């Protein structure tokens, strides 16, 4: 009697181990395949510029579709159980079957591997896009940014300075090396899907790829003080010719200012970013 029971238990353990092995192999295989597939296109396309903003749009879309499917799945099952399990008599109790130890483990291990494979797949995709965000193309315009309450001060490689207006040529990647002279700020350009905090004592960076002429809002995304919500500026993308003309004009003005030994002032110094309408 006793040995029979033990035998039964041993059989169950064997069964459990078999289930575990099969599910883990399957799930890991799926996860690895998924992540290597996701990492694939990045290596082949290393030569041309990977615009992070476009990558963001497609990955965002994909993740939103994924979570919508998972959400609808859960919601429909829940709604069905709610409907089918309405209490019909006052003394009624639930009649759900008791889980056997093997199925209890199965209901734990299988979801773990499904979730883990979704996680790893998402992580692999996210990592590929992350590298696009952080690897700045060598052929770029590099501008220094100092943020302060409440303005964005840009300095171009040739010493030209602007405030709250970042003027860039179309078609060339732009990199900002950022620091702050007072509190935290965050240089957020919604149209280019990018932001990064600037702070005193450290230099952070971001880059984006303007392709055609136009204007884009820059706004502060890290609480920096009383006037936080009025700290805004613009990225102005000009055609290559217009940009060259503008830069030449700025250079002439800079040279003129240097010869008269006037104190260096930002080319576009003026009112701070904005003020409240009614005060």
């Amino acid at each position, binding site marked *: 009697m006793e040995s029979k029971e033990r035998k039964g238990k041993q059989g169950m353990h064997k069964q459990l181990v078999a289930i575990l092995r099969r599910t883990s192999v399957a799930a890991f295989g799926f996860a690895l395949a998924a992540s290597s597939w996701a990492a694939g296109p990045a290596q082949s396309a290393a030569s041309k510029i990977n615009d992070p903003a476009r990558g963001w749009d497609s990955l965002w879309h994909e993740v939103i579709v994924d979570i919508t499917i998972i959400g609808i799945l859960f919601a429909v099952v*829940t709604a069905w159980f709610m409907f089918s399990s309405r209490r019909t008599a006052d003394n009624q109790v639930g009649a759900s079957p008791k889980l056997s130890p093997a199925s209890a483990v199965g*209901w734990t291990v299988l979801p773990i591997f499904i979730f883990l494979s979704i996680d790893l797949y998402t992580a692999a995709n996210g990592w590929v896009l992350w590298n696009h965000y952080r690897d700045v193309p060598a052929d770029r315009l590099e501008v220094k940014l100092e943020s302060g309450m409440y303005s964005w001060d840009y300095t171009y490689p040739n010493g030209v300075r602007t405030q709250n207006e970042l003027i860039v040529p179309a078609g060339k990647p732009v990199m900002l090396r950022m620091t702050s002279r007072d509190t935290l700020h965050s240089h957020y350009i919604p149209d280019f899907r990018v932001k990064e905090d600037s702070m005193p004592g450290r230099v952070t960076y971001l880059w984006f790829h303007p392709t055609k002429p136009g204007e884009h809002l820059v706004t502060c995304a890290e609480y920096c003080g009383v006037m936080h919500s009025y700290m805004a500026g613009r990225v102005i993308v000009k055609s290559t010719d217009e940009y060259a003309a503008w830069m030449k004009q700025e250079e002439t003005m800079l040279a003129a200012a240097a010869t008269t030994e006037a104190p260096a002032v930002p080319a576009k110094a003026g009112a701070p970013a904005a003020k409240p309408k009614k005060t």
Partner: protein
Amino acid sequence: MNLKEWIFTTDHKRVGILYLIGSLAAFAVAGIMALLMRAELSTIGPTITANPTNYNVWLYTHGAVMILGFQIPALTGFFANFCIPLMIGAKDVAFPRVNALSVWLFYVGVILALLTFFIPDPPDIMWTGYPPYSTITTGNTAMYSFTVLILGFASIIGGVNFLTTVAYMRAPGITLNKLNIFVWCTLGAFVLQLIFVPVLGTAVSLISMDKYLGTNFFDPAKGGDVLTYQNLFWFYSHPAVYVIFLPFIGVVFEVLSSHARSAVFNYKMVVYGGIGGIVLLAGEVWVHHLYVSGMADWLRIGQMVTTLMISIPVGLMMISLVGTLYKSSIAFTTPMLYALGVVFLFLIGGLTGIPLAVPSLTLAVSDTYYVVGHFHYVMAVAGTFSIFAGIYHWFPKFSGRMYNEFWGKVGFWLTFIGSNVVFWTMMDIGVDGMPRRYYDYAHFPQFESAHQLMTAGAVVLGLGFAIAVLNWIIGAMKGPPAGDNPWGSPSLEWTTVSPPPHGNWPTPPSVAEDWHPYAYKKG
């Protein structure tokens, strides 16, 4: 029953009810702050105040008081105090006088937080208190530091108390695998509090030392570092999310199981996989709050993986919640509606967190209304709904009376609709670029109608909450007697009279061998 008896009480149930009253008062204040902010945002430019500092103070108060004054005390103060000794068959907690001290400290903290409105320069540093702003503002940073320290200390001594209580005071026959899920969840939450609160205490002490005593922990000009504060702060404050999440999902398990008269699906998976998994992962994911803060790239990638892995324990718990409903017997009472509401709201909130676990996606949506909408779904609304579910569920036990079912349901539907209107809209305009913590959105005129919709939704939401609170007050005074076990639950707290006397049971309870808190019997 006089006031002195209540103030100097050491009875765990009265301490719990004091926690409940204090945290609901805090909830009301923080809720009014939310309505003031929504009123201000209903038009572009100044609406009800021309001074952005007023708005920033409301925002600070809303965040700090909702988390530190309402959710954590309601869950680990009221529910833990009232339910745990009753659920494990104990007469009281292990250290009743320490328990009384913790509720006194809680009231000191709440009063200190409310003094914000009576001092000349109230804190305007958000609940995060990031330097350098918090060390240079004219606002009163010390007020923030001391509020956090006192509430944190109240919570730590509560944690010691409950870990001891559950370890040593269980009635004979209640083994660890027969503990209510809520007890397990609260234990997990207190373990997290004990590990991580000291780190928060350090962080908020250091900003006040920087501001008032001339130290330079966070001033890079004098050798300090700005990012250190953010690391310290979130090293506590992300686990704090689980300090709220664990007890609230525990309450949902209790309510769902009782009103569906169905055993929790795969109990051990929830306890060891779900709760255990969250306690293990809680301390390794804080960098996802710092994805755009200028952290090292390898840290952002490493914690992307750990953050995504949070989906495993949480997913197991969701499977169990839904599985509990399978072939059950659901009565759609008010507490059940709130608990089912949590399942749907938490589903939305949890899934919208997945993109935020990925740093490359977060670069665009971090610090926007998308984040605000996400954490309101996952923590604020789901948490508050579960607190409301729990209060309705145990209302017959702690008051001995019944609430009004009709007004309970009216309150539920108003809050459910209101919160979806507000927070879905919020996530929607967040993806389009609306940044958070904005007193004015002059640069985003395209969002004005969305803001007005959210303001309308907030009014509906607030009305629903007010109806629920009134329902409790009237029910506690005039409701019909409820009986000892109105829901037909085998869980131990329903075996004593309502309301339970001091000492809980006339004779100490013991349980049969086949007893389980979720073993529902026909009858």
